[in-house]
């Protein structure tokens, strides 16, 4: 498990996201209305839409291309569409630094 500093929490406005490329993979880090952060691969399983540009409603994001609804907690696409997006755990320390927890081999999970 790697702990990678990717941002400061203040760099991400509520209900918006920022993207970061880690080890070649583009990841979108969202801030929910509660202030909680969620990180998912920035790629809709439907047509590769950039989820970072989607509208955030509670812990869901709507893909901007064709409106697929994705649960950012488990990465699951909501019915009636199907699919799954890779999710990552995020930690914030007391200074507001945001860390991505990069599991070894997490990409082949």
């Amino acid at each position, binding site marked *: 498990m790697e702990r990678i500093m990717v941002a400061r929490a203040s760099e991400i406005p509520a209900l918006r996201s*920022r993207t970061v*490329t880690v080890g070649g993979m583009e990841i979108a880090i969202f801030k929910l209305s509660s202030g909680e952060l969620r990180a998912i691969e920035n790629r809709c399983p439907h047509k590769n839409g950039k989820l970072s540009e989607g509208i955030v409603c509670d812990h869901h994001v709507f893909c901007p291309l064709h409106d697929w*609804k994705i649960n950012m907690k488990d990465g699951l696409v909501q*019915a009636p569409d199907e699919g799954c997006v890779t999710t990552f755990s995020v930690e914030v320390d007391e200074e507001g630094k945001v860390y991505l927890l990069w599991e070894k081999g997490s990409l*082949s999970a």
Partner: protein
Amino acid sequence: MKRKLVLVGNGMAGVWCVEHILKLAPQQFDITIFGAEPHPNYNRILLSSVLAGDSSMKDIVLNDWDWYRDNNIAFHAGQAVTKLDTANKQVVSDKGITVAYDELILATGSLPFMLPIPGADKEGVIAFRDIKDCETMMETAKQYKKAVVIGGGLLGLEAARGLLNLNMEVSVVHINNYLMERQLDETASRMLQVELERQGMKFLLEKQTEQIVGKKRVTGVKFKDGSLAEADLVVMAVGIRPNVALAKESGIELNRGIVVNDYLQTNVPNVYAVGECAEHRGVAYGLVAPLYEQGDVLAKKLCGLECEGYQGSVTSTKLKVSGVDVFSGGQYNDEPGTRAIKIQDEFEGIYKKVLVREGKVVGAVMFGDTSDSSRIFKLIRTGEDISGREKEIVLGEGFGGKSGSGGAGVESMSDDEIVCGCNGVTKGAIVKAIQEKGLTSVEEIKACTNASRSCGGCKPLVAGVLNCTLGEDAVTAAKEGVCGCTTLDRDEVVAAIRSMHLTTSKEVMHVLEWNNPEGCSKCRPALNYYLGMAWPVEHAEERESRFVNERNHANIQKDGTYSVIPRIYGGVTSPQELKKIAEVAEKYDVPMVKFTGGQRIDLLGVKKEDLPRMWEDLDMPSGYGYGKALRTVKTCVGSTFCRFGTQDSISMGIELEKRFERLNTPAKVKMAVSGCPRNCAEATIKDFGVVAIDGGWELYIGGNGGVRVRASDLMWKVKTEEEVFEYSAAFMQYYRESAKWNERTSEWVQRVGLDIIREALDTEEKRKALVARIDEALNLMKDPWKEIIETPELRSMFEALPEKEAAAAAE
């Protein structure tokens, strides 16, 4: 490490399976696909509709080249796999490429069966199986006249219909004494024959082909009885057989096809087979629905998900020939032990037969009206015991008469009844999608559920389900309703916003008890608009509720890049401005520079992070080519240069564009100004159109040149330019205040009625009040590009965070 998945065969079955794998576990496999044909994956079922001229080759592509690239699939098109080495787990193509696999899917499909008769190798003798065959038919039809189709089954008749459309004289040769004997009983078949003869097809029944005659090219077909039919083209459509050549060499167990178990596994570990090449429980299917069911099971199996194995399919058939409705499912011939319910109406040309054995429906044949087919097919599949109730259940509602397309029949369908046979989509799944996703069209349903995506035969049924679910009147009303988060409609929500003085979306959703606490992608932008319209000063713009285009002030493209359209007022530019645009396009390596339909220039393929810098270099206002706002005011040359022009349409267009640019509107608004009634600016298909006449102006509203073309209505004739501005502003504000979010003026004028709009603007007092309110909103608007450039917090949102390395990813 990702597992290496190799698919041999780029047809519908194999690629369907891969699509499912990508959905279930997008990261699990490195995928390689071999396809013998030099095309991306296409819908073989629709080849007959390409021949019939209803679709083009492009229309039938299911996954285009980009799909392979976007999903990182190594796609070897035009390469057949010729060697399979199961010991070393690798495949070799005819062009010499060797690829190793962890899991191998054989989806090699089937081969048309060519009659082994003398002359079968002559030029002009083909099968009907792939794009190339289709192309050959189309080419041949340009030079030759006479076609003979051997085989009076499903495929043969579809080929024959296509050749008729290509203006060939077509004779269908059939060995039996009636057509489609594997799907139809004689009565239905005779009715079909009469209809096809009426369409121009000729039939040679009970003929056995002995020889194809001709020199190099075919000139005729000779039959066993000594007779001869002239032919410039012979299409053999006598059947297919599983393509097992590759498996044969590799010790994989074969029977008629590649033998697989319920999980599509062959007897060799890690080798699977799906589709027409596979034989499951003694059956090799040649129809699409079973292939999809198999693909679903195999995808789950490969992704390690638990599932019930494939249990085999009961198949049904529909003939895809325009103007002929034929259905067949299960057993279709009377036998001892079966009893039938038959209806035959020779006036309407309808025949229906349902066979019942021991209280269960075992098969059905229908001709002329197939609207009951899915209900009856469900009875066949489920094997429900209907003893004692046969007639009421089978006859059902409307079984006797012609119930139209998808009308009454749909209502009585149960939720688990299949609407789309190709893709196995039930009525319940469609209803759920309509309700949850707010779908309002067959196209949306197709995109969302796959229903009607393959042969398209169920489109009327899908439309019927849509009508039933929303109610015929509500198909439009529901479309413009708020969303699934509330039962309140637009007017109720706006009334609440005004009367309770609600100024944020959060308040609205809380006070009006939204059932999703933070709304959805439909209501959030709508609420942001209504609030801004009702309280232009107090409401603070909610960027997070804007659709991406209106937040980034550029139009997102399918690959995640953006397009940039600067404002070019009235379509009038200058050499300096053009040079500047050209320099910016060069500096940022813009992949495409294109003129828009609205007399402007579009820079396409711009990276998000380049947007602010480009705007800075352009130093032009945003053209709002992405927003629910005034897009462009198209103008003709007018009296400035044109010898017919009666008024200065260019100045009028520029003035209107300057007046209303940046204004938020319920949906996009397009305007045009024509300098004379010749109307070169096409003002009568715009939301607001101005046409100059001698001594005045005509004002048109509610036009649309897009999805649903609508010519606008002439509302007012005015004399002065001031009046044009007053009426246009009053009209725009009345539209802003009364339309639903996302409702174009063309829909709005039809909903509220022209009289109401005319009345709202019929006194100067009313117009002045509307103009005052629009001015209040307009005064607050700033150029968004400039605002982003000058505001660091906004600008930083266009930059990605610094890239990071990851040790684990480097492995």
